[in-house]
């Protein structure tokens, strides 16, 4: 079947099998490897992308279901090379080690911060309860989210600091 999916603001179009999962459409058809493919069982959240502005697990969504809809992936977070404040915060607070969970964490937390710019720790922990991290123990991820809430814009001097 033919699908037309707006990915990161750009219309994409491809002939796909109905059984193709959105995560593979993004990674293999479009070559957008920022979205990670982990457990494949809707547990880990590494594959989290936005579908019409809502974070979802792309390993449990068909590309066909995104036909005619808008998808946003981690590749779209920075603007013109300038990191999103959340990405910057992950650097500042060491919110990642191996980085496998990071794209999913970023997409989930960006959605949270857009909805609730000043979430408390419990809110952050609940928001990422569908995103597993095997490295950090979550402490620094939560700290990074708080850091991003406290620094909602990325000032250049912070980047060089």
């Amino acid at each position, binding site marked *: *079947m033919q699908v037309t999916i707006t990915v990161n603001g750009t219309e994409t179009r491809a002939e796909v*099998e*109905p*059984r193709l*999962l959105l995560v*593979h459409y993004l990674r293999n058809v479009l070559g957008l490897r920022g979205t990670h493919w982990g457990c*494949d*069982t*809707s*547990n880990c*959240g590494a594959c*989290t992308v936005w579908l019409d502005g*809502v*974070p*979802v*697990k792309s390993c*449990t*969504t*068909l590309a*066909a*279901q995104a*036909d005619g809809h808008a998808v946003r992936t981690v590749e779209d977070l920075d603007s013109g090379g300038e990191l999103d404040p959340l990405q910057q915060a992950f650097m500042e607070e060491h919110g990642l080690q191996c980085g496998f969970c990071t794209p999913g964490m970023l997409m*989930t937390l960006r959605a949270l911060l857009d909805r609730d710019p000043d979430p408390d720790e419990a809110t952050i922990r*609940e*928001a990422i*309860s*569908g*995103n597993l991290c095997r490295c950090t123990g979550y402490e620094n991820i939560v700290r990074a989210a708080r850091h991003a809430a406290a620094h909602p814009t990325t000032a250049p001097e912070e980047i060089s600091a």
Partner: protein
Amino acid sequence: MQTPATFHYERAGSVEEAISLLERHGPETRLLAGGHSLLPMMKIRLASPGTLVDINGLAELDYIRLEGDEIAIGALTRHTGVLDSAVLAEHYRIFAEAERVIADPLVRNRGTVGGSLCQADPAEDLSAVFSALRADLVVASASGRRSVPVREFHLGPYETVVGENEILIEARVPVRPGAGSAYEKVERRAGDWAVAATGAFVQLRDGLAVDVGIGLSAVGADHHSCAEAEEQLRGRELTPDAIAAAAATCRDRCHPTADQRGPVDYKRHLVEVLVTRALTRALERARGEEA
């Protein structure tokens, strides 16, 4: 890599179209709502439908609203919509308490009320909630609509009364002025299925329980409930002893099975403890003692 077997994909633009697609493509057709039960089953080939009818576009089934003395919940309402609903928060706290422990926020963004009920997983939480509240479920077909009491909706694990060419479109919950409700669940880790879970509501008049509902999940309870325990409490003052006796009835009347989530006696113990807690908190809320 887990890939579903090949299937034919259709998209329905209305309830009528969904029904006619079900009729046209025959018994190997499944409706695709949130997909968070169906797609994982297809990926491990536990399910291989010939056709999927995607109903995610049916915005007409995504609502929660007060209609007279009932709350109507559209079948395509996402879990997150239930969790955030002001109408449900006002009348039945049990919904948000149950939703908060269903899967995780990302899954709740996609999973639907109707999908959960129709999947009929024996450990599913909303089945216990609706059973406690004695909701009616509205099923549509080409020949019209029928209303099924939720306690007659599930025929067994993964089996419901919804026919091949039918679609669940709505749940209707009676408003019970002054009722208090609560949900209690024990899970092994965040987002997991229940080891045991229970929900309850209590409606008081002159200090007596004019109506009581108890829902049970994951413990093999008949109709996700315990009618005998409800009967024990109805019309009575809900003293701690009365609640304890009803909880013991629930413990003895359910049929848990031993699995990786625990042995039978542990699950029975949980039922007794959780029913006591849910009834006690529902009672406090009905009395206006607990926010």
